[in-house]
């Protein structure tokens, strides 16, 4: 062991400095957690925009004496958009507050990254599963109301109702598969790496 200590001293003394690209302090390095939070922030931005569009459209339709069924349809979309927001916003704020400052123990830091990245990915998948089929079915209903005047046109024709549900389910399934695949490509290896390190600490 004495030998190892002596050799380590030599390594410590001769550890060559890492060549910096510039002597200027540049906090520009990639940070996975920040990257995920940024992604979620963009998503939240989209949700706000959609809530405003649906809400504004609904009010305009209502105040201008448009088809009341369209108003109800848009109201449902507003409610689901807000629900979507409630699903993702608290988790986002919680994680933003923690901010993943790396001064905790190694185990805490690894667990924080692993658990929260998994949580964010789960939320993303859940949103895809809920929102995409719903949006597809609402779009279908809107097209019928627009051309036939009432959504009852769908309910009077079971084949049309089935078509609408199948459309929602198929588009929803494709949406969730795409979300899972994209998250696996983007973060799968990194999650496996974090898990391996966490397990390595316990072994």
């Amino acid at each position, binding site marked *: 062991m004495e030998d190892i200590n002596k050799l380590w001293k030599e390594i410590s003394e001769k*550890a*060559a400095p890492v060549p910096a690209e510039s002597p200027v*302090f540049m906090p520009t390095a990639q*940070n*996975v957690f920040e990257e995920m939070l940024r992604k979620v922030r963009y998503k939240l931005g989209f949700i706000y925009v959609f809530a405003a569009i649906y809400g504004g459209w609904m009010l305009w339709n209502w105040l201008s004496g448009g088809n009341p069924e369209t108003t109800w349809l848009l109201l449902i979309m507003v409610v689901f958009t807000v629900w979507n927001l409630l699903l993702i916003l608290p988790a986002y704020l919680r994680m933003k507050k923690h901010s993943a400052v790396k*001064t905790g123990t190694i185990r805490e830091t690894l667990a924080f990254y692993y658990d929260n990245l998994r949580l964010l990915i789960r939320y993303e998948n859940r949103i895809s599963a809920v929102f995409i089929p719903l949006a597809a079915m609402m779009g279908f209903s809107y097209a019928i109301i627009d051309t036939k005047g009432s959504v009852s046109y769908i309910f009077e024709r079971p084949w049309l109702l089935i078509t609408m549900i199948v459309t929602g389910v198929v588009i929803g399934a494709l949406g969730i598969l795409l979300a899972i695949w994209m998250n696996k490509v983007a973060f799968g290896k990194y999650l496996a790496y974090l898990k391996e390190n966490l397990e390595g*600490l316990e072994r």
Partner: protein
Amino acid sequence: MDHSLPPPDLLQLLQQHAGILHKVIRLYADDEEDRRDLYQEMLYESWRAYPGFRGASSFSTWLYRVALNTALTFRKKALRKVRTVDLDHAVQIPDDTSSALSPAAEMLYMAIRNLSETDRALITLHLDGYDHEAISAISGITKNNVAVKLHRIKSELENRLKQGDYGRHQ
């Protein structure tokens, strides 16, 4: 977050303890691009965390914590994109730390690099003089577990050094 320049005392402290960062980077990053990225990441994380530094431990212990946590959560190039082998790597250009070392020190350096990432963190802290209690506080595993793991890691290193089997330089 305030994106102003880091406080001058932090810059001074980082300069004084830069060896810790360089040592950890050399043990965790595989190529020059990753080393530069990891170095920037460590500076960024130190700057971000510094307002919370209350001096409960020494600055070097605090910096070790930040450096190791950053290294262990760093998203390496190999994880970011498909690994490709360029000409420089194909001809195995040695890194500048190992080339400056004696053959025995180089063997130890390679043997440590060949350990698992978490074992690397524990043995680095141990060799830098941290006791089991301090290592337990930094790593988050129990003192007993630290002792058991260090015993195993040291035996593994000693065996490798004796046999000259230190694994391939990554």
